[in-house]
């Protein structure tokens, strides 16, 4: 395990693009976890109000709501981690270093393990950052205190962790299938933020579809499956009912995709000739 992870570390630790993307990602997480209050203050200064309510009193940093709020927002920047995965897998293919690694004496399983452990490490670090940022922001702004609130709804941290692992596995698979890194990055990005959401929105909302099974099918789309782990939390501030838990069904669907991604990656590694 440690060996496989160290292999990956030796490959990326002196790689500038890795550090640039990591820096961008960390910066984005910082903005997301700590920027909410400043954003609300800015809204107030612009004269915005929500049905007569001063935006700055919206309790976005209250325990335990803060966990769903931050993990939901943070899930928008996971694509930066996926880029790291795509570039690192693509490097191994274009520089033939995967082939060289195998010749030198690793198995295809160890290669899979080295990449997955890199993904898991990134997910662990991300989740810990969100956790500590949540503790700090909550300590400063939360109106409620006490362990029963602070450690409630921790499941969203687990869901966030799982989102990273699954989305990065999808990126890994695509990078194995398509050897043009730039193309994979653009395709995955557009699919994630445009193509699938548009199709899903049509299936769910269009009058022609919404009464059939189409909305149900949309729940099985790969990105939807990942997004459904953490529902949009902000409706609660305009007194809408929201799903403030991680549903077992969404975990099951996401796990299904995760198994598919891992299986396909391993199948490709096993079957493809490394030339």
């Amino acid at each position, binding site marked *: 395990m440690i060996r496989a992870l160290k292999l990956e570390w*030796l490959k990326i630790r002196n*790689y*500038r693009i890795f550090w640039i993307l990591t820096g961008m990602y960390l910066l984005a997480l910082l903005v997301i976890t700590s920027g909410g209050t400043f954003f609300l203050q800015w809204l107030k200064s612009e004269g915005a109000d929500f049905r007569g309510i001063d935006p700055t009193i919206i309790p976005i940093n209250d325990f335990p709501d803060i966990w769903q709020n931050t993990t939901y927002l943070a899930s928008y920047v996971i694509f930066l981690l996926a880029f790291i995965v795509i570039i690192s897998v693509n490097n191994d293919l274009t*520089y033939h*270093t995967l082939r060289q690694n195998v*010749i030198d004496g690793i*198995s295809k399983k*160890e290669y899979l393990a080295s990449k997955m452990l890199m993904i898991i490490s990134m997910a662990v670090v991300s989740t810990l950052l969100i956790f500590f940022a949540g503790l700090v922001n909550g300590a400063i702004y939360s109106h409620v205190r006490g362990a029963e609130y602070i450690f409630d709804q921790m499941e969203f941290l687990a869901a966030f962790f799982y989102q990273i692992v699954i989305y990065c596995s999808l990126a890994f698979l695509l990078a194995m299938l398509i050897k043009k890194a730039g193309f994979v990055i653009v395709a995955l990005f557009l699919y994630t933020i445009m193509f699938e959401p548009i199709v899903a929105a049509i299936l769910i909302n269009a009058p022609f579809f919404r009464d059939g099974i189409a909305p149900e099918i949309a729940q099985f789309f790969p990105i939807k499956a990942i997004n459904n782990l953490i529902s949009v939390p902000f409706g609660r501030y305009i007194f809408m009912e929201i799903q403030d838990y991680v549903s077992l069904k969404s975990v099951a669907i996401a796990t299904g995709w995760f198994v598919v991604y891992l299986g396909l990656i391993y199948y490709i590694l096993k079957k493809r*000739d490394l*030339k």
Partner: protein
Amino acid sequence: MENILKINKLSKRFGRIQAVDKLELEVSAGQVFGILGPNGSGKTTTLGMILDVVAPDEGDYEWFGNMPHTEARKKIGAILETPSFFPYLTAVQNLRITAHIKQCGENNIEPVLKQAGLYDRRNDKFKTYSLGMKQRLSIAAALLSDPPVLILDEPTNGLDPEGIAEVRALIRNVAKQGKTIIMASHLLDEVQKVCTHFCVLRKGKKLHEGSVSETLGEINKVEVAADDIKILEKVIGEFPGKTDYTVDGASLLVTMKDDFTATDLNDFCFAQGITLKKLFTHRNSLEQEFLKILREND
């Protein structure tokens, strides 16, 4: 002798082309084994399969008796075609990855870089290297774990004459340490110069396998001529050390038995009262043998 590699009915097809066809091979410890064949005869595919980067359709292979393949590959230094390293890492950083995979420690990195003449450039990125330097780094990486077996695919391809001489010297040096070397080449001269054993592949099939010295010794020929070719022919007809002879213009081409040399032939003719005016030992080249093997199998 200890068995290093045993290949058993290995086959691989790429579309309509049968790249390797039920290949059987055995390589023993200490051999410098050349895999000869024209371009596209399946040499690289064979090496790819025994290194687990090409999946065989059929057949299998064993390294070092029956060692698990991943473990076996750690004891093999291999250079297949192009040097493969991370361009954004330095020579030392790249070799650290190799050392990590081979589990051989990093103490050998400096010595092999010195051996490959890259020590002064060790902290420069791989992408700044010339082709020759890249190739030398491959050699350094292959030697890093001090492996008992080396696999080389066209080791002198693309090198300048100096580089070629260096690589050949290196191969002989390594062979002298009792290591086993398996190399693929289409350069017959190269195989003749460095190999102890060889096989010939064509269209994925093995046409011939044997030791280089035996194969070349087999058809030791001596070309002789005298003033009177008729009398010479008669004398040669009585020479006990021949297996056969042919008339070749004004000379006779005598095929010798194993234990006889040109000296024996000269003594015999002199004793029979004939003075040879030409006595020339044909040192057969592998090239002639190779072409003959290909012809025989047409």
